[in-house]
């Protein structure tokens, strides 16, 4: 088996194992979801071409270990029959991860599954100076750990109080984690310190009379790493509400990394080197032109 282009194989999701001429095949999974018939196909491939098991990766991926070099083409064909593809490795945008979000989870504030599909279509496997991870979490509970990613998106909710619907029961005050709501029952008054609101949406979720109305949005974090070096992604601007603007922010950020990043340098390290303000100013300029903060 001479002239094996391992780099090319890795690009296509075939990870070289310690065992000679065996590969762990990484699959393209979006937002941690897979159809049951696709799972059946994976089962079939693992039994026929692998070692009868799969490995679930740290970022919601599935790998089928022990694929033989000579079986790679036929395995690809089998995967294609079920609408499956090998995943991306190397210096590119990796698996888009997501929690179940508002479609399933009572705490969810954004439709993470739908967003993951859009991210996958637009950004997956895009070539960059180094690996690039994007993750989406539906709310501040942060089950998907947004800040671990090069770009992390977290669902948020901006509440607005509708005075005429309020019965002054005090439930919102009781659940607010940052104590920015104060209800005076006798006086039938409510005070909301919007400036310090963290957009968790809990007041909206609990209100028995829907006197709190919520507008869903996205809180974005940049430059998170959780490998050899650990650093927590940073928020560079307030919550945004438009999905199209979110896409523009991501496009601009990927372009920035492509222009400024050195090969083999993670995004957070690039930002440390060139200065975070460089990215921040560029994104703020974009947001102002979109009138997101008008």
């Amino acid at each position, binding site marked *: 088996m001479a002239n094996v282009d391992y780099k090319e194989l890795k690009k296509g999701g075939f990870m070289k194992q310690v065992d000679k001429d065996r590969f762990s095949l990484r699959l393209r999974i979006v937002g941690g979801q897979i159809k049951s018939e696709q799972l059946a196909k994976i089962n079939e491939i693992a039994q026929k071409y692998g070692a009868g098991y799969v490995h679930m990766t740290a970022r919601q991926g599935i790998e089928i270990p022990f694929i033989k070099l000579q079986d790679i083409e036929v395995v690809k064909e089998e995967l294609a029959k079920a609408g499956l593809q090998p995943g991306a490795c190397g210096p590119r945008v990796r698996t888009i991860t997501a929690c179940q979000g508002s479609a399933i989870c009572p705490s969810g504030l954004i439709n993470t599954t739908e967003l993951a599909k859009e991210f996958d279509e637009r950004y997956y496997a895009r070539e960059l100076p180094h690996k690039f991870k994007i993750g989406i979490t539906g709310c501040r509970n942060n089950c998907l750990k947004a800040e671990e990613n090069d770009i992390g998106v977290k669902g948020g909710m901006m509440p607005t109080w509708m005075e005429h619907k309020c019965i002054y029961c*005090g439930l919102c005050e009781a659940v607010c984690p940052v104590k920015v709501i104060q209800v005076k029952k006798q006086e039938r008054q409510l005070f909301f310190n919007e400036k310090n609101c963290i957009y968790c949406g809990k007041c909206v979720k609990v209100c*028995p009379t829907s006197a709190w109305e919520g507008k869903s949005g996205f809180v974005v974090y940049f430059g998170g790493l959780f490998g050899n070096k650990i650093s927590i992604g940073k928020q560079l601007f307030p919550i945004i509400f438009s999905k199209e603007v979110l896409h523009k922010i991501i496009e601009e950020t990927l372009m920035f990394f492509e222009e400024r990043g050195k090969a083999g340098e993670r995004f957070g390290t690039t930002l440390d080197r060139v200065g975070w303000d460089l990215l921040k100013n560029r994104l703020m300029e974009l947001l102002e032109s979109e009138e997101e903060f008008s």
Partner: protein
Amino acid sequence: MSNLKRTSFVDITDVVCPMTFVKAKIAMEELEAGEILEIKMNEGEPILNVPRSFKEEGHKVLDVINNGDGTFTVFVEKGE
């Protein structure tokens, strides 16, 4: 103190999720529509989830008293 007159009372501070809502729900089942259940619960997860679950099942939270000791007393009117 709330001005509301309760029909029944249940203390769920001695159980944890998911038994908090189960215990409260069983107490609610004894009531007729329009009657009021008074529930004592802990801060944190119970105050966030139990009233919300009652809302989802068609009942209505009327009043919440912060007892100042890490517990809340919640008055819920049974729905139709």
